[in-house]
C-alpha cells in the first residue's frame, strides 16, 4: 500500500514533467502541424538559461591570494562574485542560490525571442511542406543548437541546484500515519508539480477563453481560407510558436535542478515527449497532459522491483508497450481529434 502510494506520488511528479514538455510540443505539433524535432532543443535551451543565469550571477573578479597555491603550484587566484561584492555576501549569496527560480523571469523573453526567430527564420517556410521535410529541417536545427551549446558549455552535465531551502524532502507518510521515511517527497519536486499545474492552467485558459486557439487551429487546417477571412495567420502562428517555446523553456529551467543540464538532454526527451503527445491524441492539449501523467505513473509502477521480478525489463519498455496498447485500442490516442495528422 505505502509502496503504491509512493509510486503514485512519484509518478505524478514525473508525469508533470512529461506533461509540461508535451504541452509545449503539442502546441506546435498538434495545432500548427509542424513536427518539431527541435522542441527538445528548446527545452534544453531553457535549462541552459538557468545555467547561464547562475553563471552570470556568479561572475567574479579575481584576486591573487599568495597564501594559497593552485594546482600548478602558482599563487592561487580567488574569485569573488560581483553580486556578493555589490550587495554584500548575504544578499549576493542568496541571489546566486535562487538562480533557478530567477531564471524563469530571465528565460521568458529569451525563449519567446528564440521561438520568434525560429519561426520567422525557418519554420514558416515549412507549414505547407510534408512532415518528413519538417522533421529533417528541425532535426538539423536541433543538432545546430546542440552543437552551439556544447561549444559554450561542454558535454558533461552541469550541476544547477535548487535554492537551499528546497533541499530535502517532505515526509508525507508521517502526515498520514505511516512510518516515517516511508513516503517522502522532495520539496523541489513539489514546487515543480505546482509550477506545472500553474503553467498548464494558464495555457489552457489562454486558449480556451480567447479566440486565439480557434484561429490557430483553423489556420492549421486551412491557411488559405483563414487568410480569406482577413486573418493574418502568420502573425498568430509566430505568437503560438513563441508561446510554445516559452512553455518548453520554463519547463527546462525548472527541471534543471532535477536533471543536471547537458547538451543532448533535449534529444533524450524528444522521443518520449512525442510518444506522450501522440498517446494523448494529436491536437489535444488535455490529451497531452493526461498522457503525460498516465505514462509517468505507469513508469513509476514499472520500476518497482516487485513488478520487475515478474516481467524482467518491463521498466525499460513500459512506455512503449502502453503507447502501443493505447494506439491500438484508441485509434487517435486518448483524446485525439479526427483527421489531425492522420495522413
Amino acid at each position, binding site marked *: 500500500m505505502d509502496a503504491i502510494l509512493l509510486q503514485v506520488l512519484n509518478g505524478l511528479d514525473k508525469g508533470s514533467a512529461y506533461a509540461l514538455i508535451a504541452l509545449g510540443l503539442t502546441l506546435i505539433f498538434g495545432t500548427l502541424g509542424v513536427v518539431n524535432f527541435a522542441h527538445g532543443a528548446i527545452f534544453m535551451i531553457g535549462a541552459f538559461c538557468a545555467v547561464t543565469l547562475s553563471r552570470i550571477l556568479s561572475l567574479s573578479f579575481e584576486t591573487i591570494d599568495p597564501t594559497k597555491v593552485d594546482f600548478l603550484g602558482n599563487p592561487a587566484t580567488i574569485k569573488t562574485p560581483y553580486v556578493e561584492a555589490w550587495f554584500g555576501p548575504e544578499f549576493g549569496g542568496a541571489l546566486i542560490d535562487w538562480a533557478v527560480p530567477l531564471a524563469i523571469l530571465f528565460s521568458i523573453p529569451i525563449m519567446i525571442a528564440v521561438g520568434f526567430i525560429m519561426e520567422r527564420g525557418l519554420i514558416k517556410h515549412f507549414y505547407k511542406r510534408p512532415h518528413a521535410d519538417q522533421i529533417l529541417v528541425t532535426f538539423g536545427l536541433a543538432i545546430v543548437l546542440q552543437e552551439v551549446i556544447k561549444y559554450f558549455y561542454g558535454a558533461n552535465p552541469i550541476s544547477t541546484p535548487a535554492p537551499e531551502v528546497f533541499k530535502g524532502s517532505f515526509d508525507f507518510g508521517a502526515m498520514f500515519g505511516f512510518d516515517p521515511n516511508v513516503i517522502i517527497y522532495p520539496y523541489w519536486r513539489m514546487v515543480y508539480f505546482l509550477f506545472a499545474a500553474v503553467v498548464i492552467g494558464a495555457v489552457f485558459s489562454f486558449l480556451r477563453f480567447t*479566440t486565439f486557439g*480557434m*484561429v490557430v*487551429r*483553423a489556420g492549421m*487546417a*486551412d491557411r*488559405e*481560407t*483563414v*487568410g*480569406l*477571412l*482577413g*486573418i*493574418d*495567420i502568420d502573425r498568430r502562428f509566430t505568437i503560438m510558436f513563441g508561446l510554445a517555446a516559452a512553455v518548453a523553456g520554463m519547463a527546462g529551467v525548472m527541471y534543471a535542478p532535477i536533471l543536471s543540464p547537458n547538451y543532448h538532454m533535449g534529444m533524450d526527451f524528444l522521443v518520449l515527449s512525442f510518444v506522450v503527445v501522440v498517446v494523448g491524441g494529436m*491536437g489535444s492539449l488535455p490529451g497531452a497532459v493526461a498522457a503525460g501523467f498516465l505514462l509517468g505513473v505507469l513508469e513509476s509502477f514499472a520500476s518497482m522491483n516487485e513488478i520487475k521480478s515478474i516481467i524482467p525489463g518491463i521498466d525499460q519498455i513500459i512506455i512503449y508497450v502502453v503507447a502501443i496498447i493505447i494506439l491500438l485500442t484508441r485509434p487517435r490516442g486518448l483524446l485525439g*481529434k479526427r*483527421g*489531425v495528422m492522420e495522413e
Partner: protein
Amino acid sequence: MAEKQYKTAENMSANHAESAPAYFSVWDLHAYYGESYIVQGVSFNVHEGEILALLGRNGAGKTSTLRAIARLDDPMVTHGEIWLDHQHLHTMKAHEAAIAGLGLVPEDRRIIPGLTVEENLQLAQIVEPIGWSLERIYDLFPRLKERRKQEGITLSGGEQQMLSIARALARDIKVLLLDEPYEGLAPVIVDEIEKTLRIIKAQGITTILVEQNAVRALNLADRAVILDTGTVVYDGSAKEVLENETLRAEYLAI
C-alpha cells in the same frame, strides 16, 4: 454583326486608360501555377453595385482569376494590377485584401475542418470590419442555425455551400467573388440564393459571379466577361450574350 462587341485584351487597355474610373478593376493580370501559365493577361472593370458574370468553359481560368484577385499564393501573379475603390490590391496579401473589402467564396467551399458551423462563422468575424450579424445570417439560412453545433465538414454539400456564402457575408465586404455558388444546390435553394444575391446587390455590394449555369448567371448579371484559355474573349452587357446565339454557341456552348 457581333464584330464590334468583341473586345480583346489589347483594346481593353486603351479602354482602361480612357473610361471613367471603375470601382473595381483588374488590369492585365498574368498568373502562373509553378511553370504553367494560366491567367494570360485578364482585364476588366466593374462598377459599384454591379453584378459581373465571369463565364467560360472548364479550365478556362475562371477560378484561377478569382484566386489571383483574392491574392492567394497560388497562382502566383507575375504582372498586373487590381484596384478596388482607390486601393491597389495587387500589393497586398490575401488577408489584407480581405480587410480591404474582398470576399471570396471558393469553389470547393473550404469549410474548415475541426470547427463547428458557428465557429466557422465566428472565425470570419474576428477581424474588423464585421458584416452581417450571426442572427441575420441565421435568418437567411435557417438550416445553418439548426446545424450550428455540428462540425462544418459533415454538412451536406448544399449546406456547406450555404455556410460558405454566409461566411463571406459575415464580413463587411465591398466586392463579393463567388465561384460557382449554385453548384450542388437544389433548385429551390438556387432560387433562394439568387434572391439573396439580389438583396446583396441592393445593398450596394459589387459581385463577380463565376457560374457554369450561364443562363441563370446572365439573367442575374448586369455585365458578362467570357474567358477562354486565360484571356478575355468577350466583355460587354449580359443581355447581349443572352440574346446573341453566335456568342453563346461559340463560347458557352449553349
